[in-house]
């Protein structure tokens, strides 16, 4: 269970938001909405403990995330604007190396399965720079299928995806939430998934 109380964020001279409270429990997901520049990405980075909030506190299962550090990281999967996908490596290498960084070992079969699920069959051994923007995004999303994390924080996960991939990703998120996971995401599209909460900033 992730709770945040009294969060505020200051960028330069501007106060983006203040006194923000939120709570996401098992089997729930949170849709963060707001205009461009409202501070959605800043909020997600704060929740992922990448940057500290100006005020307020974030707790994971009752403990402050600062104190948890690596235990929180183990439960968390954060996908930001930048994909953390290396252009010179193949989708397969990207996926296995990302898993090793997460401290897990990814079997070759499950990696290939995840890539096939996202329509990248036959492109496992092609350097990512030869793929289209949407396909690069799919490489990134394949991580969702292989990484076991309780809390997903996804920043604009639907960018550059085609209709089929959007459906696939919605299905993946629904599956994750239904099995007791949590998800926080930003998107300008409406998301017809059950158990959703909306946060407007």
């Amino acid at each position: 269970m992730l709770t945040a109380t009294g969060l505020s964020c200051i960028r330069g001279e501007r106060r983006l938001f203040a006194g923000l409270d939120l709570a996401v429990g098992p089997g729930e997901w949170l849709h963060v909405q707001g205009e461009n520049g409202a501070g959605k990405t800043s909020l997600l980075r704060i929740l992922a403990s990448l940057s500290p909030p100006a005020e307020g506190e974030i707790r994971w299962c009752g403990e402050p995330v600062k104190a948890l550090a690596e235990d929180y990281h183990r439960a968390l999967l954060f996908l930001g604007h930048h994909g953390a996908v290396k252009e010179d490596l193949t989708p397969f290498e990207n996926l296995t190396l990302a898993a090793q960084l997460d401290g897990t070992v990814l079997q070759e079969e499950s990696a290939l399965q995840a890539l096939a699920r996202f329509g990248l069959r036959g492109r496992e051994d092609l350097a990512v720079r030869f793929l289209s923007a949407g396909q690069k995004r799919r490489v990134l999303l394949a991580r969702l299928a292989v990484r076991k994390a309780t809390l997903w924080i996804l920043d604009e996960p639907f960018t550059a995806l085609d209709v089929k991939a959007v459906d696939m990703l919605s299905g993946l998120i629904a599956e994750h939430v239904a099995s007791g996971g949590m998800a926080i995401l930003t998107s300008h599209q409406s998301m017809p998934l059950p158990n959703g909460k909306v946060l407007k900033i």
Partner: protein
Amino acid sequence: MSAIIAIIRRDLLLAMRRKSEVLTALFFFIIVVSLFPLGIGPETALLRKIAPGILWVAALLATMLGLSRLFAPDHADGTLEQMVLSPTPLGLLITGKIVAHWLTTGLPLVLLAPVLGIQFDLDTGALGILVIALLLGTPLLSLIGAIGAALTLGVRGGGVLLSLLVLPLYVPTLIFGAGAMEAHIAGLGAGGHLSLLAALLALAVFFAPWATTAALRIALE
């Protein structure tokens, strides 16, 4: 531990896919070192005298060349964020990156230096000291350079700033590294200089990853 090996493997793999970056630094080293004997001519006594300084200065500059690319690509594509959020402590992952940097830039210099040293009419003993001093000194250059690269990450005009920041910090390495060879050539024995280099390396192995990690956390906020 497996995460460190993974990051070393990844960086070596990336270096293999982008050979030009590694080879540029290496050819820079070869050319700069070779220009001096060509310019000065066959005055062996003078060449022997200037060899330590030239080889070491060229090694410093060659290491500097790729330093700004140590963290910048990872910063740009979001890999650094994922490293911060990894369950493995960031300091260990950074150590892995520094090891990979040394393997791709430092180690080739160590292997090439004795071949280039022949141009300066150095005897086998002096070449041996050169290799040992570089083996101790080049990891030190990577470790110190990583602090500078992390501090200048995301700063506009960071490349120039990086040189201004890091080159003064390289001075002790240069003095003891070149000093070891000079002492050997003068017949004084290089033991003292090499011990000091090793001591500096031991210090840097402990403190440089820690300082680099702190600088990277600030850069990411």
